């Protein structure tokens, strides 16, 4: 496993699970922002392409004591990414200020080592050529390149938006390495109807997430693997936080 990489800027996402209604708007936003083709048979979830997936959590109690929650899962942009060290062709790397794990499609040879290495199932393999119905390709965005079948793809925190935010800062004579809170937001965070997804620089005290991640209710998935994800979750419900890792019954969360 590669060593932990720290950066002056660390882009983090904080998902407030207690506010997520599971509506799927984040998934819809992600798909069209990042030019993922519609899939006529999308019910086989092992073969569909989706960079953001909303999972349903259950406290495993019978009715009426049952409780549930939704957990949207993008790429965790791990501080110590297991996918990077296994890539034989350096198609994925973590080397830019901000800590976003890159994915370079033309370099990817489709070996899927990274898919196997990712403990979060955040990486997807394109099993089929992307096909848009006639004319629909005219609604592709200029932001993310299209990918052929046979390569691995994943969420990149809408990295193009970071570039756009930096450009906008430069145009305004501001420091592109010190963006204001909210100047850069991935598409999912922007359109979430309940505002469950917060985004910002964890190292910047002026950004809301700087404080949010310090909350005792904030947690990361499978933290004890040492992957140091840059995606945090937040829930006041103990059973939700407990599902963030493989805790023993005797352990407190």
């Amino acid at each position, binding site marked *: 496993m590669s060593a932990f990489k720290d950066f002056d800027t660390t882009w983090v996402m*904080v998902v407030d699970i*207690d*506010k*997520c*209604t*599971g*509506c*799927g*708007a984040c*998934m*819809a*936003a992600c*798909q*069209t*922002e990042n030019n*993922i083709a*519609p*899939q*006529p*048979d*999308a*019910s*086989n979830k092992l073969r*569909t392409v*989706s960079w953001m997936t*909303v999972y*349903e959590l259950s406290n495993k*109690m*019978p*009715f009426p004591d*049952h409780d549930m*929650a*939704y957990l949207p899962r993008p790429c965790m942009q791990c501080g110590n990414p297991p996918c990077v060290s296994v890539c034989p062709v350096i198609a994925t790397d973590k080397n830019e200020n901000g800590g976003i794990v890159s994915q370079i499609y033309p370099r990817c040879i489709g070996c899927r080592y990274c898919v196997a290495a990712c403990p979060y199932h955040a990486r997807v393999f394109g099993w089929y*050529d*992307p096909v848009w*119905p006639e*004319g*629909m*390709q*005219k*609604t*592709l*965005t*200029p932001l993310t*390149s*299209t*990918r*052929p*079948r*046979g390569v691995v793809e994943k969420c990149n925190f809408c990295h193009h938006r970071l570039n756009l935010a930096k450009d906008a800062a430069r145009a305004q004579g501001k420091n592109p390495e010190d963006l204001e809170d909210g100047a850069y937001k991935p598409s999912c965070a*922007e*359109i*979430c*109807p*309940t*505002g469950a997804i*917060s985004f910002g620089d964890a190292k910047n005290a002026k950004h*809301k997430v700087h*404080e949010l991640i310090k*909350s005792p209710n904030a947690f990361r998935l499978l933290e004890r693997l040492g992957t140091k994800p840059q995606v945090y979750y937040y829930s006041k419900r103990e059973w939700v936080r407990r599902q963030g890792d493989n805790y023993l019954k005797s352990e407190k969360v």
Partner: protein
Amino acid sequence: MGIDRRAFIGLVAGGVAGTLFTPIPWKMADDLSIWSQNWSWIPRVPKGPVAYAYTSSKLCPSGTGLKVMTVGGAPVTAAGNPDHPLSQGGVSSIGRSETYMLYSPARVKSPLKKVNGKFEPVTWEEALTALAEKCKAAGAKIACVSGDQTGTANEVLSAFIAKQGSSAYYMVPSEKQSAAKAWSLMGGAGQPGFDVDNADCVFILGADMFETWGSSIRNRKAFGASRDASGDAKAAFIYAGPERDGTGSVCDAWIPVKPGDLAMVALGVAWILMEAGAMPSGPGAAEFVSYVKSNCSPDKVEAACGLKPAVLVGVAKMLAGAKAPLVVPGSPCGQGGSAAAFMAGMALNMLLGRINKPGGVVALPALPKAVDGAMDQADILKNDLLAFLKDAGAGKAPEAVLFYEANPAYGLPEADAMAEAIAKIPFKVSFASFMDETAALCDLVLPNSLTLERFDDVASPYGVAFNVYSLVKPLTKPIYDTRTTADFILALAEKMGASLGFASMEEVLKAKVEALALAGGFIAKDVQPWQALAGSSAPEPSADLWADLEGGYAWVLAAGAEQTGLGYAGGVLAKAVKPIEGKVVLAPYARQTSGTPVMGIPAQNLTIVPDNELINTATFVKMNAETASWFGVSEGSSITIEGAGQKLPVKVHLSENVMTGVIAAPLGFGHSAFDQYSKGKGVNILRVLAARVEEGAGVAVWDGAAVNIA
């Protein structure tokens, strides 16, 4: 000289060895690897200047403002407009689909006429002539069915049939219509609205308000604003309904209640409030008190619904202890809601003194009309589409029916009977943008341009606590040979010598905006309408309202209608409150991921539909383990649901989110029309859902129904 065996072998071996020293085999192997892996062409991303334009969503019932990204002038993605009060940057998966659905394979690409059972393209001029003839022949025997809950196009269409001498204008049933009927039974004025933003304790009585009820993006924004992760929640939310899903999953408490029992639960809370000293007054109060005192004590509610008295006491205490409590009644599936539940919920609001208060119920006065002769919204909402179609099925159909943004052949309860009734209408025209089930039955299909291609508007979606108006303007030329229906109807009226006084929808909207400017109100920029409701002073009216609306801003009017005749309708409630009899109740639910009846499942949304709702062509219904044990079924079992004279094959998903005795089933699947993203995906649950008529209220209800399982 002969070639012996040894020479032959030597020749072959020498040839092979020789060939290996040439580049031929290596080149061939290389070519083979290239040509056998020849990746097919994939689309490249567009190039061009990126800009943003503003409009509002007509496909999404939330009526959200949209911020559309364009590349070289062509729309590519739709996000929520951060400066619009109904979206504040949020958008649903339906609103998001406004751009790519322009190219949906299900779009009707030109006017179509049915000849010998098959559609053939015709020109707009031919269609205009044909329809004018039919309309003249039909005279007053013409009707219109509209699914557009918020548009001024309804004024154009209703004025058109009114000129013909008809008042047969029907809205596709919605939460808005259920509420309007129940609210008028209580003597209420205006369109009921709920100020969720200023409430500090919201008791949600059945309404799936974060998914399908009202302006759900606005509701979710209000919910989100009430609970900042860095502090304590500013408002408590309690959900009562058959399933803990979507809305229920984020509320502070879930009270499991079957669809037919929602009224009883609300009245049980009313009983406790009355015991604590709340005293109803006004029309119908005496009957209300008498009915509630003798029938809705907590022990009687427990006997009827299985709810422990302590639960009701808890709700009553939370409501009574809150500064700004609010009860939001509605349907768990976004349609066919119970009038009894609505009246009971509103009675609670009245008991708590929450009418025309910040954080309470604010009913909206009707907005001025632009088209002379157009029917009033309130009158239109009194017309019952279900009864109309049942009459049509019995041979009492008018000569001609126009369907605008409506797909009743799919989207109504007892869908098979509805489709049969529609088939019996002598001449029918659909203005559908997509080839839906109703359009497939019609004689003429005259495609309406989509949101991003037309002038239209969104006026006060149901549920909001302030009048709000936003403009829909074309951001691109029509992709196919489609027209704005309102423009076509104006031309049709002109051709028939019954001009409506406008040449285009744009002119109609300008007249509407002029009328709005005279009504007061302001542009929601620095002050939001919920802030005005809470007492902030409203800014000056806009100097150029049309320009502001074109810029994506919304006009708002934060003032409630005066209530002079509002009462408890105790007599009606006493008759209407009845549980659904049956061992197991089918409780439908709707998700925005599966689109709406007029658009089918948006192409990109199929990936979002979870695999506990749809796998290949199988629809999954949810029930808990105890209910499953009654029928001896388990996860993945195939069962048949019988109801309304129909049988539907479905599969079982075990979910403890569903209360015992209830089967929760997703709407939005089982289309027989549209495209590969909708057609044949699952089953349409509405086919087994029978509507029941609530006695006293006389309102058809289908938020749940008793069914048999085999």
